[in-house]
């Protein structure tokens, strides 16, 4: 069976809420039924058939072709299967993702992996602010799963993140790990200001030392055995993180302004 493919006929003028298009929701539907599904489009509704050309039949692998940054909530609340986004995705990619895999081959807007619970989200391009954060009003962000970003990420990566793993090969903006509760964020590029701001617990694994504010305290250089376990777990994702092998790090702890016990680990350039 071929993957169920939704090819965008033309770039939409307004944002489209795609949360109704996940493998688990489309599993038992015919092409005609899928074409009749109504999606929120700006302040009105539009049917799937009007927006997309529908081909293929295997709903366990859903492909968005010619995808645009107007397609919000792709993979929201998904519980199984795989989604491939050939192009860019809008905001809230993988919102509340519970299981399965989403692969975005382009860039995404803000709030990717928002409230994510489990599963795997891959973004080949750049992503906006609040990656892995919580939605408005929630006091917990991402609660599990793995996010891999090949490009750059915006501000507030992992804001209030509770659990899980975020690996970013590029640069990130300001306030990375802000209000982080637990989990692990790895960044191979550069970071903006106020990294680990109000961080409670969790780990920031960095390749370069950002400018840290006064309440992130230097605990010296150490060899940490747990890193071998962490690096071993990275191997399955086939990223630049798979090449890490030093257990030697400079360890910073904070945010002391928040009585925090989070850690910022700066990887040594030589093992």
């Amino acid at each position, binding site marked *: 069976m071929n993957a169920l493919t939704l090819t965008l006929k033309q770039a939409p003028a307004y944002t489209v809420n795609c949360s109704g298009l996940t493998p688990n929701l489309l599993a038992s539907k015919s092409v005609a039924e899928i074409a009749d599904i109504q999606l929120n489009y700006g302040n009105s509704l539009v049917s799937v058939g009007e927006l997309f050309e529908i081909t293929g039949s295997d709903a366990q692998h859903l492909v968005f072709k010619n995808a645009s940054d107007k397609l919000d909530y792709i993979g929201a609340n998904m519980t199984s299967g795989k989604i491939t986004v050939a192009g860019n995705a809008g905001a809230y990619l993988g919102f509340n993702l519970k299981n399965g895999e989403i692969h975005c081959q382009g860039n995404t807007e803000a709030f990717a992996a928002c409230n994510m619970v489990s599963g795997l989200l891959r973004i080949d391009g750049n992503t906006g602010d609040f990656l892995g954060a919580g939605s408005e009003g929630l006091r917990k962000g991402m609660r599990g799963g793995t996010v891999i970003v090949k490009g750059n990420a915006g501000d507030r990566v992992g804001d209030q993140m509770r*659990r899980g793993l975020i690996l970013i090969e590029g640069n990130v903006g300001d306030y990375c790990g802000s209000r982080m509760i637990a989990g692990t964020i790895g960044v191979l590029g550069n970071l903006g200001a106020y990294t680990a701001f109000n961080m409670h617990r969790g780990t920031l694994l960095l390749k370069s030392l950002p400018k840290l504010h006064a309440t992130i305290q230097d605990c010296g250089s150490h060899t940490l055995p747990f890193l071998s*376990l962490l690096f071993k777990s990275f191997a399955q994702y086939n990223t630049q993180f798979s090449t890490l092998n030093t257990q030697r790090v400079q360890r910073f702890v904070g945010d002391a302004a928040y009585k925090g016990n989070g*850690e910022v680990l700066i990887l040594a350039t030589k093992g």
Partner: protein
Amino acid sequence: MRGTRVIITAQNLKWAYHAANAMTGFATSVIGCGVEAGIERELPTDETPDGRPGVSILMFAMGSKVLMQQLETRMGQCILTCPTAAAFAGIEGEDKINLGKNLRYFGDGFQTSKLIDGRRYWRIPVMDGEFLTEETTGMMRAIGGGNFLILATSQPAALAAAETAIEAMKQVPNVIMPFPGGVVRSGSKVGSKYKTMFASTNDAFCPTLKGATNTELSPEIESVMEIVIDGLTFEDIALSMKVGIEAICNLGANSGVKRISAGNYGGKLGPHLFKLHDILNGNKS
């Protein structure tokens, strides 16, 4: 019985053994020690979770509560304290028991948890750096007290045969021989003339009592050694016994060993019977 396996790693094998020897010390018999424990085997770096040299430990107790208590106590006093040592789950059992779950409080609030590939680890800051331990390990139903007796014409001959058997049996996975050097000289029978004693010396196999009791020994037997085996399954123990007995047989007629027997305690101890002839013939009892 209940059994568990723990993997101990350290900077090198020397310190892994220091930790493992401490953890399995005073653990020869559940009667007096609470648990029976021993080192199962050495683990090369590609078999350990953290890529360091290590050893695997098997630990057995009469019930899950005792096993959990003993494991936590021994983890705290023997592994937490041992320089560079780390502890990991060595078995995926039907049930989970605490490994480092409560030890984390030693960190006094500075401890850190990491969930990696679905397994929770604790990093506890200690004076040599960080103590790393997995939160839980598996526990499964297991069997203890498999045994056989080596009857020989002299004490040196009996012990030499026992040592040979132990070296061969160490190559068998999933079993330990928990007594000193793997060998017991004080085999026991159930009961005693003294009301407070549940077990007492196995007088039928004591060579110095041949004329004074209902002996099981023929006149030429001067010494008897026992090997006790704990294992995760019946088959593991049976294989271990077969390997050990065959190693003794391979010593030949001049070894001084005249007979291999076993203590069955009149069938009063446990539901499992290891019938030596069946085991050596490869039949399951």
